């Protein structure tokens, strides 16, 4: 059962890993997404919102993917950076303190602030691995949420911040979901481009070396301290960016928007898609964010299903649906080691 399921996926993957097949598929999907808001159909507004929201999660997923997928650091407090980005924009562009700075100025600032918070979190956890890191980052996420809830003077507590300014682009006020839909689309493309370049650079190779074996990586001259902090910073930067966009889109934010479940959702979509794989993040977002929104009657069971999926995925297919090749080899290293040499060549050549 497990074998058959895997080989079916293998065949689908192969079909789309030929260059032409892949580009045709990407072209169709991108084209559909681009024209969707222009088609006039009954539930257009709903779809634009859902797909836009999915795009936001793709951005978050790409950010966390750098930390979890590439550098192999299990961060359960990713929502903290999302919250920092969102609150940074909300405080600097709303009536709360009567400060109104342009979105395009605050956006890089919010992202940098989140990136800086990423480094701050990174420094104490440098020596930790695996489970410990997971718990500390989880605690960090909760601390940020509690601070946001309790620092009433600064954040207006659980009443939230409302009346956040809309961004302006060449005199056009961006306020409808369709505007944000296209804006998010552009940021998704940028995020994909940046993370992919990082993945294939010297930095990406260092992250992966570190993920595979930290001691060995250090031995061959990878500065693990620097690269760990860099991965936290890049991940947090992207998370902060997502947060600022979210705040601008919603127009109001509340501490409840930033609970643990955001981190869990993002982590799940990475794992379902395939840790370390960028197409995996995209597919994972559509599977975990779009699908449950369409299947409204099952919305209640969403988290139950997520929990179940995490367990099943870890047992049946830990590399996710669209695995990155290196990650797949790593996760099946044990099986490969026990298999005969012939099997290794077939696996490696697939």
């Amino acid at each position, binding site marked *: 059962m497990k074998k058959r399921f895997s080989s079916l996926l293998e065949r689908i993957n192969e079909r789309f890993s030929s260059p032409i097949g892949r580009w045709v598929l990407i072209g169709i999907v991108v084209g559909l997404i681009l024209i969707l808001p222009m088609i006039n159909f009954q539930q257009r507004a709903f779809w634009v919102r859902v797909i836009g929201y999915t795009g936001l999660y793709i951005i978050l997923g790409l950010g966390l993917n750098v930390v979890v997928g590439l550098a192999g650091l299990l961060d359960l407090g990713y929502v903290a950076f999302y919250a920092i980005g969102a609150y940074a924009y909300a405080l600097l562009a709303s009536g709360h303190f009567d400060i109104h700075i342009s979105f395009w100025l605050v956006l890089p600032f919010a992202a940098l602030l989140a990136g800086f918070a990423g480094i701050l979190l990174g420094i104490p956890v440098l020596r930790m691995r695996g489970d410990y890191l997971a718990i500390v980052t989880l*605690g960090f996420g909760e601390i940020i949420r509690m*601070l946001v809830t309790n620092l009433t003077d600064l954040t207006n507590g659980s009443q939230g911040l409302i009346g956040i300014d809309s961004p302006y682009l060449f005199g056009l006020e961006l306020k409808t979901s369709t505007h944000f839909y296209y804006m998010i689309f552009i940021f998704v493309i940028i995020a994909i481009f940046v993370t992919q370049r990082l993945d294939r650079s010297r930095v990406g190779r260092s992250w992966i070396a570190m993920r595979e074996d930290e001691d060995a990586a250090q031995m061959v001259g990878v500065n693990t301290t620097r690269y760990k902090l860099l991965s936290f910073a890049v991940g947090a930067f992207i998370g902060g960016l997502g947060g600022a966009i979210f705040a601008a889109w919603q127009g109001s934010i509340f501490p409840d928007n930033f609970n643990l479940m955001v981190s869990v959702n993002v982590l799940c979509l990475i794992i379902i898609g395939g840790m370390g794989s960028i197409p995996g993040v995209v597919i994972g977002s559509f599977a975990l964010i779009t699908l449950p929104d369409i299947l409204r009657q099952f919305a209640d069971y969403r988290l139950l299903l*997520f929990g179940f999926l995490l367990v099943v995925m870890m047992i049946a297919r830990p590399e996710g649906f669209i695995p990155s090749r290196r990650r797949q080899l790593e996760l099946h290293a044990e099986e490969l080691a026990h298999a005969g040499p012939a099997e290794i060549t077939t696996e490696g050549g697939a």
Partner: protein
Amino acid sequence: MGFDVSSFIEQLINGLTVGSFYALIALGYSMVYGVLTMINFAHGEIFMVGAYVGLYTMNRLVDVGLYDSSKILAVGITFIAGTIGAAITGVTVERLAYRPLRRAARLAPLISAIGMSIFLQEFIRLLPNMGEAITSISIGSFTLFPENIQTAVVGFLQEFGGSRVKTYPGVFGVGGFDIGDIHITYSRLIILIMSVLTMLGLYFLVRYSRLGKAMRAVAEDKDIASLMGIDIDQVISRTFLIGSALAGIAGVMMGMFYLQIRPTMGFVPGIKAFTAAVLGGIGNIPGAMLGGYALGLGEVIGVQFLPAVYKDIVSFSILVLILIFKPTGILGEVLAEKKM
């Protein structure tokens, strides 16, 4: 405001009560970490399941009148039921979600544990909904289950779980006694005594029984233990059984003490108990007990200086600080880094 000795002592007793909960839950984390070097993320949820099974049992005992005729017997049965419920859950979780991953890569069991934690929480929350969905399946006009069965099943599940807060009957009452100016409620005293007795029992079990010896051997070195003829899977399974049973006791106790239980109740005590386990030195059984009480007292003292809303932030900060400066904990043997 002057320093009030009697209220300070009352606060200390308060801290020890809260510490008892943390210590009991921390033991489960620590024991599992000892044999598997993994953090059982779902442990807080096992504690929650214990509280729910306990409450269901107690309500039935109230219905049949046993609670009114013999309170002690009813409370005893409730504790046993909650303990068994949690123990069964723990062993099942280990069997389904962790055992298949015994030889998997480092992150896999951890993610599986997070999945299990979410699953258990949602499972308890959605029980009535699922019951209703399943029993109301119909094909055309033919319904799979007759209406009376449907109402019975949904009624049972609503009694058991669901998203709404459930309330334990006030078992301990609000009574207490005074020593001088110091007021001690019976509930705190009972909780303290029960926890200490439970932990003493556990200590002797691990120190002197055959199973305890096997557990320590597995914690020391799994492969060598297996060569000495120890059934590793069985020892791990029993470790989960004992650890979960302790969480079940803590769950029922917390339900009786704070009265209200909800599906998310396991999260915060879970993290705090983990902090306690780390504080005492994870993998170390006396350490977990010590860490639990230390954290309970630390929280009570912290609240003297800071607004109560920052209580949780204090605990999380303690966790981060220990992991940075003394990852081995107070009685620590295992390094945070080494055994990963």
